[in-house]
């Protein structure tokens, strides 16, 4: 066990865990931030995507000891009132079916738009390819990403 001071969603959190514990389980089991989902545990599905600084990363592969001072943002901290342009677009397009993969999809999309405010279809496909949706909502996801990009461009 070891003590870590983590910066999560703008708050400092003190955690006492095994240094190898992936952030996914720190968030879920220890901080009860359950929006970040477990899907595969091996960086294949994207359900556990969070932001480390400005990058979308797979929290199931991210040992708590590797975080240091870096800011971690989860779906719960993406916006104060659920009004991040990506979240708004997701509601407008009514993307989710079961919804389980969607937090990871949204976090990947938000990081993409941060870096590339006006992605092409193929850039969206490349960025989102690591996020599996068994319900098959990919078309709506792409549409919502474009809508969010458009909204950001117009604002």
């Amino acid at each position, binding site marked *: 066990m070891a003590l870590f001071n983590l910066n999560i969603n703008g708050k400092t959190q003190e955690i006492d865990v*095994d240094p190898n514990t992936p952030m996914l389980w720190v968030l879920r089991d220890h901080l009860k931030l359950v929006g970040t989902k477990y899907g595969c545990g091996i960086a294949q599905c994207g*359900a556990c995507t969070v932001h480390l600084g400005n990058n979308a990363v797979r929290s199931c592969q991210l040992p708590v000891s590797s975080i240091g001072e870096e800011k971690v943002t989860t*779906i719960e901290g993406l916006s104060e009132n659920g009004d991040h342009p990506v*979240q708004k677009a997701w509601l407008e397009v*009514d993307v989710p079916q079961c*919804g389980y993969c*969607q*937090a990871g999809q949204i976090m990947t999309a938000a990081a993409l738009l941060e870096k590339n405010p006006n992605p092409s279809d193929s850039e969206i496909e490349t960025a989102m390819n*690591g996020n599996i949706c068994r319900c098959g909502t990919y*078309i709506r996801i792409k549409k919502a990403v474009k809508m969010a990009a458009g909204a950001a461009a117009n604002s």
Partner: protein
Amino acid sequence: MVSVKTNIGRRAFIKNTSLASGGLMLGFSWLNSCKSNEAEKMEVREMPKEWFEINGYLKIGDNGLVTIISPNPEGGQNVKTSMPMIVAEELGVDWNNVIVEQAPLNTALYNRQFIGGSQAIRTSWEGLRMAGASARYMLVAAAAQVWEVPAAEITTSAGMLHHEASNKSVSYGNLASAAAQVSVPEEVELKEIGDFDIIGTSKKNVDGTDIVTGKPLFGIDTYKDGMLTAMIVHPPAFGLKLKSVDGEAVKSMPGIQDVFPIKVLEDDFTRQHFDTCAFLEVVAIVGGSTWEVMQAKKALSVQWEPFETYTEERQPYRGPQQTLTIPAGLESTDVHRKKMAEMVSKKAEVVRKDGNPEAAFKNAVKVIEQTYTAPFLAHNCMEPMNFFADVKEDSAQLSGPLQKAELTEQTLAARLGMPVERIDIQMTRLGGGYGRRSYANWALEAALISQKMQAPIKLVYSREDDMTGGIYRPAYQVTYKAALDVENNLTAIHVNAGGIPESPLYADRFPAGAVDNYLAQRWEINTNITIGSFRAPRSNFMASAEQSFLDEVAEAAGKDPIDFRLELLDHASKNPVVSNPIDYDAQRYAGVLKLVKEKSKWGETTNGISRGVSAYFCHNSYAAQVVDMRWENDKPIIDKVTCAIDCGIVVNPDAASNLCEGGIVDGIGNALYGEQTFKDGVPQKSNFDTYRMIRMGEAPKQIDVHFVENNIDPTGLGEPTFPPVFAAVANALYKATGKRYYDQPYLT
């Protein structure tokens, strides 16, 4: 208006009215159940001081806010939005003033709280309408009493009651208390379909905001005070059972509390249909955090041994009790394939025979014969199997994602030796179901672990436990044979369909009834690998084989594939084969083909685009699809899928489209990539690094969904678009590559 007796779902009206007499105040949490995408409206919308329960489906607040209880679990089919829409329609309220709550499992109040067979809306349609209509009746009766006017003179609109002659109006909220005292009518009037103003308009997912902000909605998100985390270790291969476990070493690992074997089902347990269980004894590991338990799981040493052939008693969903034989042995996919191939020439059981197929084949000018195969498939719900259990001496509290909570509760009661009344189950949102969560062996495991630990526990399967745990879509094979006469008329069809361990055959479906000479046979090969319902069970394979085959026959007959099918359907409706019944409506079937033909602009060609068509009937609905494909760098790119579907009245059109799009994408994924294989009993794919799932780049660029407009009561939607697309893809692949695709997955 249509008068109907309120017999369907009446339990829910009656029991609760007695409860509600006197205006029952119900516990209620605004934040938990608020209709979230209306978040902005929250500030203007005040919570009522009091709620009045009108019946089991709805309560009305003194300020006019209405809570509608959604009876069925939600797993992405959007029933949590569309079922309450039906109640709201007949009640006559503004949808913006509706809050939706998930019902707990309550067999005394609700019928069939299932997800499965795409039947939620179909089987609850009348009951939900009556719930709304009888509440409206009670409000009208209350107003008639207060105003001392005839009830027939009272009209309602958007949560208001009016009496035009005396120019009186009052809101539902003001009369809710009085309405709760009115006795439930024996008969109610339902709206004319043409007067619907909520049904048929698109309403957003009531859980949308909670989903996009990461609220705890799913079973796996359950965390309770004092709760422990449990995982299981199951045999690594089908055909093996537990020999011994040495848990001592891992018990001293950080956070680990206990390691012990559990007997999931006793040997003499009479199973219900959904009690399929591959691994009768598993090892439980219980500890503090998931990560700690995962580490212990890796370190644990367990010995396994082969089991002998055994039998189990099973009560199937329909029909008499059966004794199933579970064969010993470690099975492999290559042996499965060989065994299935041998069945092509073996005698099989005749299920249906029309006319004289033998003679027709003898007299045929052309005979076409092809064999189609498909592998076992894992469901791969994105939320791994999990369940929360807090089992005490004489009661149990459980929650988690279930498709058949009522049946799970019965099994839990039998296994725990506890009456169902002492078992309370909360149904959480399902992170996907597709059939998998009808088989809740993990709920039993959770309960048994909690009982042993005398503590609340959450059982979580790792992805590997989930993917290697059985309940797969069976492996199938079907051989089709067709006879053409000199004028290229289809004179006979022979279908011989089997699988491991079940046949996918639906003997009375198309093209039965459309061909004068028809023979259907079935066979089965036993296995110890467990199987279960998988999105559109059996149909998901029959459609792919049948519709690929018809494409090939149409080509041999020199006919356009859509025209060829329409000819057959025309035959089925004009000169039906009368010796045996058919289970489809040939005209509705033709209807979706005609619609897809028109909407896809079938017949127009575009350079580089290859097109494939397919149509299928299942779950009481009809779906037809055209796939537009390009072949680039040795890979298919699907530009567009045009889909026509006849599922009767569409309750929530945009959400319905979403579900159809999902069925199509999921179908394409499974057709191209889906398979689970075995070597010496060991599932060869255990996670998404080896089990290929469709990803965004491989999904169609566009899907257009067109609904047939009619006034037929709604039928299934979650499954019907899934089966046909397998064949539409195969037929497009043929056009693109010149090669017919007979074995799934098409791309390996």
